[in-house]
């Protein structure tokens, strides 16, 4: 990723919800959320509003607007994958009770810009996608309702205009250690954004500290991103 890629000005999107769970990859059985939204979750929110193979979202920073608070919920879950060769799953036979450490009452501002990918055709240009995104996010339109880590924690979203005052982040600067940056996908099997992670997909991380409520996200491919 070099600096010469044409990109849009950063957009600002406020997202909030009653609960969120940005699951730590090392604690997936009984889910434990990271303290803050990960860049990959932020990208997912943006892609729920607008995505085409021709564009890529790059998250620049995430502002944390609410104090970090927790809640624990235990639910019955199914511990099986579905298979066309089976006649269905009897929930009593495949039940797993899993607790989740969730965040509650979260609100963030995602700052992110758009870049074109090598799948962009001659008729694709950044201005078109920029206008599309502004129109969609401004009117509350989305491909599917964005969510905060898991689909049951839906996110409300609001575009913050260029000249609007944004709410200020919390005045806290905790060390957060390693945070998931994103999953580097092996895109060779990625037809139409229906992706199955295989052995070619790897997680990447970065060291992070909130700076007075602001989480600065390194650029993809920069040396801060640990692959």
């Amino acid at each position, binding site marked *: 990723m070099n600096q010469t890629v044409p990109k849009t000005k950063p957009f600002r999107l406020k997202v909030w919800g*009653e*609960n969120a769970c940005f699951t730590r990859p090392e604690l997936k059985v009984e889910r434990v959320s990271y303290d803050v939204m990960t860049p990959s979750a932020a990208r997912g929110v943006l892609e729920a509003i607008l995505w085409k193979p021709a564009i890529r979202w790059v998250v620049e920073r995430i502002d944390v607007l609410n104090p970090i*608070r927790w*809640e*624990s*919920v*235990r*639910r*019955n*879950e*199914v511990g099986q*994958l*579905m*298979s*066309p*060769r089976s*006649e*269905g*799953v*009897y*929930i*009593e036979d495949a039940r797993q*009770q899993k*607790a989740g450490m969730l965040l*509650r009452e979260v609100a963030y501002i995602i700052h992110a810009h758009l870049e074109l990918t090598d799948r962009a055709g001659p008729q694709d240009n950044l201005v078109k996608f920029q206008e599309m995104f502004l129109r*969609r996010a401004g*009117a*509350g*339109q*989305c*491909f*599917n*309702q964005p*969510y905060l880590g898991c*689909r*049951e*924690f*839906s996110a*409300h*979203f*609001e575009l913050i205009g260029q000249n609007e005052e944004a709410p200020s982040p919390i005045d806290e600067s905790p060390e957060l250690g390693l945070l998931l940056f994103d999953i580097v996908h092996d895109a060779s*099997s990625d037809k139409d954004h*229906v992706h*199955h*992670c*295989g052995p070619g997909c790897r997680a990447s991380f970065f060291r992070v500290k909130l700076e007075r409520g602001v989480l600065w996200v390194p650029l993809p491919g920069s040396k801060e991103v640990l692959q």
Partner: protein
Amino acid sequence: MSQSINNRYDFVLLFDVKDGNPNGDPDAGNLPRVDPETGNGLVTDVCLKRKVRNYVQMVKGAKDPFDIFIKEKAILNNLIDEAHEQESVKSKEKGDKTEHARQYMCSRYFDIRTFGAVMSTGKNAGQVRGPVQLTFSRSIDQVVTLEHSITRMAVATEAEAEKQQGDNRTMGRKFTVPYGLYRCHGFISAPLARQTGFGQEDLDLLWDALKNMFEHDHSAARGHMVSRKLFVFRHAGEFGNAPSHKLFELVKIARKGDGKLPPRDFEDYEVKLEGEIPGGVELVEML
């Protein structure tokens, strides 16, 4: 399958419980779920999805194309021989196999078409994202949880009977919420409906299920649960015409009277629609 739906929907479902436990918390010995910080009652998304599945299974008799994949044991279903279908999946090339399996599963099972699924086909767990997304339901006001000790005039084992010299009693516990009105928000994405083939018939069945799911879920634990209101916001476009939170804010729920006594009935609440419905959105009161 019929045409998949072309409109985005956002909905608000209000349901209440009287002297029952709407959703027990396995972490708290099956006490009704309560948000410890606010005292409001909780009902998880998966709890309501289970009820939708059970309702559809009951109404449609677990038959293709409304079969249910994640079943409860309570209903024995007649297994249909799907061997020839499986052959059609098996005979495909590796790459097409996943796609075919996905289409087959979506076309046959209502719950996969509606809520999505994680599948063990193809490279590694192909995922189907369903169009319907439910959130945690929360009660409008704080709920108190009551604990009732109950007795049974029988014991389970010989040993117990001997210990009690033939008195044969067991004490049990039951937890209830005297009253709680819960609010659930849901979303239906038209573009995702296209991916799974979720059509108008499925949608009508889903509304039916949301309205009637508690009618067929009575049990000793549940008490009296009823779906009270179902407000459906139908957007003209597939991506929607207004932010969902703006629509949900139109549905206001207030206590009647001075609110000095705790609520014990749906009559103690007033459900109002306040404000303008944005252009391009139609409100349908299903209940």
